[in-house]
């Protein structure tokens, strides 16, 4: 039998049982006989580490990753460069094997790193306060809406149709029990939220206006105009954004957002099939006590020395129970630590440069594609690192051709927007080279020729 992680020898067990005063472990099991499992679990027997490595290596080879193929996929998860130092720090036992820092004297490392993370995020977003992370961008946004309901009375949210469709679905799930309505703001021909519609539908029952910037199509929303409309009625202005874009684009605090959230993956976390996410959550300081999740504060110890500690725990479920601001307990601390190390590694100039590279690359590629016959750019709004292309050939056929050439093509928008059949969303990060983009363009051109 394979028990690499259980240390007791037969002698140890005997001694322990003697001390307890029983003859066997069986005597310690207080489960009623009628519900005891008396047969073996129907699972395979254990295997050795060598066998496991072999099996996982085999399974890993049944995947094709973005290291094997060139990827132009975006839509919320991005293939950005991660400096080696990030993984080295995050794989230190002292960071990845402790629990939540409830005992500050023996958790100053985690606490100070979270405090630094909160500062970095506040600075980057130009917001007053940040928590220590949520599960992902989508649940961060849903919790922002729930927080808005605690702050302001009303009966509905106005939500941009250009919000990530999966975030929209999660928002629906989270808001359903409350009975609060959601009205979608359509997009204009420019590919951004229709401000006339928004103005039309605003009233003082609107709890919040929710937008994404850059939006799901990569377009830059008219964030300042939306702010004026939302605040005119006293509604909360809630923004979901791409943190990396803030290296060059105006951050939510500059356009007066009340709550700003984001998916943090692009800051130093591998894409991991969308399974290495974390949610960024920031707000104005007057809402601090309404925030969900953990928050670290600066403090002093008995000797007056600076230290850090979890604060405002009276908001949280382990104290407030059914009246807590959220049910969240476990968050995504280690992913947030990676973002912290990433941002420190990039520094002021590095992040600006990355954002600029994304913009330059994406603008290069868009121009090349839209100059090909059969490919059109449907939206005219300025964009960051993603853009939409309308195709005359079906997206499945295009992406199949690209796959054969070892390229993951754009995201088929018809999957989320029935009216955008034959539209592809391309994403270009700083990792894409001119050669890779030119290869994509050349294949796209050939597909056209084949028709």
């Amino acid at each position, binding site marked *: 039998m394979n028990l690499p992680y259980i240390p007791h020898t037969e002698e140890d067990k005997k001694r322990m049982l003697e001390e307890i005063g029983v003859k066997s472990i069986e005597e310690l099991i207080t489960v009623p006989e009628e519900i005891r499992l008396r047969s073996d679990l129907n699972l395979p027997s254990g295997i050795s580490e060598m066998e496991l490595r072999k099996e996982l290596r085999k399974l890993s080879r049944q995947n094709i990753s973005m290291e094997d193929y060139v990827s132009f996929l975006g839509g919320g998860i991005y293939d950005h460069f991660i400096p080696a130092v990030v993984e080295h720090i995050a794989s230190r036992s002292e960071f990845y094997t402790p629990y939540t820092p409830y005992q500050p004297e023996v958790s100053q490392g985690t606490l100070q790193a979270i405090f630094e993370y909160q500062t970095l995020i506040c600075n980057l977003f130009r917001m007053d306060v940040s928590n220590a992370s949520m599960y992902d961008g989508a649940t961060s946004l849903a919790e922002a809406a729930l927080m808005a309901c605690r702050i302001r009375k009303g009966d509905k949210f106005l939500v941009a149709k250009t919000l*990530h469709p*999966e975030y929209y679905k999660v928002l629906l799930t989270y808001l359903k029990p409350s009975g609060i309505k959601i009205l979608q703001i359509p997009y204009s021909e420019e590919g951004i939220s229709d401000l006339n519609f928004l103005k039309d539908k605003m009233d003082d029952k609107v709890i919040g206006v929710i937008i994404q910037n850059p939006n799901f199509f990569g377009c830059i929303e008219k964030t300042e105009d939306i702010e004026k409309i939302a605040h005119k009625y006293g509604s909360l202005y809630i923004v979901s954004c791409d943190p990396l874009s803030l290296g060059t684009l105006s951050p939510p605090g500059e356009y007066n957002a009340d709550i700003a959230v984001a998916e943090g993956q692009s800051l130093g976390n591998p894409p991991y099939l969308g399974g290495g996410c974390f949610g960024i959550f920031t707000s104005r300081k007057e809402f601090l006590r309404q925030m969900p999740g953990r928050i670290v504060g600066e403090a002093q110890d008995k000797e007056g020395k600076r230290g850090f500690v979890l604060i405002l725990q009276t908001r949280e479920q382990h104290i407030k129970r059914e009246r807590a601001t959220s*049910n969240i307990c476990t968050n995504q601390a280690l992913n947030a630590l990676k973002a912290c190390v990433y*941002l420190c590694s990039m520094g002021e100039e590095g992040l600006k440069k990355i954002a600029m590279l994304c913009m330059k690359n994406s603008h290069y590629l868009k121009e090349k594609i839209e100059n090909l016959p059969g490919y059109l750019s449907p939206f005219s709004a300025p964009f960051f690192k993603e853009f939409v292309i309308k195709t005359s050939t079906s997206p499945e056929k295009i992406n199949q051709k690209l796959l054969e050439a070892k390229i993951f093509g754009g995201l088929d928008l018809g999957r989320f927007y029935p009216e955008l059949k034959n539209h592809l969303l391309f994403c270009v990060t700083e990792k894409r080279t001119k050669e890779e983009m030119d290869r994509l363009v050349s294949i796209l051109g050939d597909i056209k020729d084949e028709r």
Partner: protein
Amino acid sequence: MNDEKLIFEKSKKGRKAVSLSGVDVERKDIEKFIPSSSLRKTPLGLPEVTEPDLVRHFVRLSQKNMCVDTNFYPLGSCTMKYNPKVNETLASLPEFCNLHPYQPTSTFQGILHILYETGKMLEEISGMDKVSLQPAAGAHGELTSMLMIRAFFEDKKEKRDKILIPDSAHGTNPASSSLAGFKVIKINSNQEGEVDLNHLYKNVDDEVACIMLTVPNTLGLFERNIPDISRIIHSKGGLVYLDGANLNALVGITRPGDFGVDIMHFNLHKTFSTPHGGGGPGSGPVGVKEKLIPYLPVPTIEKNESGYYLDYQRPKSIGKVRSFYGNIEVVVKAFCYLKILGKDGLKEVSKNAILAANYIRKKLENHYPSPYKGICMHECVLSAKNKREEKGVRALDIAKRLIDFNIHPPTIYFPLIVEEALMIEPTETESKETLDAFIDALLQIAKEIEENPSSLKEAPHFTPVSRIDEIKANRFPRVKWEKKM
């Protein structure tokens, strides 16, 4: 240990920790494409440091942490077992890390196999019929489940808005219930620390959607009446939910699906050895019986003759509870753990966890007597009530003094129904020598309390900081660093 400055206090303009490639496409005047009103007007506020400085900073910070890899960490209800290293190594293979969620499913069949098989193994361990791996944490699994229960009854056109929760439950249970729009009814514990059946009878009616039970409960006791509790709830048309936080006591011994549980969550970061990461990520899969399968969040992972696929065609589903498919990295680690242990190893896990908890209980229960006595399962709850009453020493003081013995404190002041609670979960991965050192430390502390109780108020003595003034930190919250003017 020296004070470690904040990274911002080490920043010096012009320093760099990263080398980036230049632009190879020429595209001048980006401002031409982006209106200036959309461009950033203020500095980013990121520090400028070199890579060696950066590394030294974070390594020094890390050294201020206690963790499972350095210390015994008997935190009750958290299952701080050893995190096997092979799991970390294999979960970081590039063909797992660098997958995009919108790639064609034909290009990630390997990882879908892992997800599918992990679900199957959890189904077998729990006796449930289908598992969703999507929830990101235990509390997220609870919320997902409560939303499913809501959808189930709405579908049946039954109006049920009450949830019964024992007073010993984790705080997430009532918080998740109210987030899902339910009213929480608290059920008392009896003198043995189990659900008070009379109080339960009084509160079960046809407005009860479900009872949320933690088994074993937070006192570390198996709810011996659970078959009866299930029958009572089911007879009124309600459902039984199991909070799987304490599943480390049950693997291979009994299966929730066999004692009446209809829906439950697992904590892969507890029972299945994935690291806690200083607070996360975790993973809180949900398992359900047949009748609740239609309500699972989308997508589910299915298999047909051409391979694995993601199924979104589920009209009764509660929808999406997060973006994409789950905390995949955590699931890969749990898969590795399940494969290494296999059916026999898994059974030994729970038995040895129970052995260790009872050994500690037996050696310490006369010194730190709890109102709930007797054999426990994978964790034991002791109390410092007598120490407080006789010597003015609280559970908090004992916890802090344990740090001086290089031991991470147990959970304190929980469960709420035990005054001055010390909740100890040793797990199966700690040797007898480690358990003995812990027992000796607590016996030594008991002696100190007799002889010099006030000395405990000074503990801990050798940590980077001493006790923190939390009152002030909460009254005047400073949640970010700001440059002194």
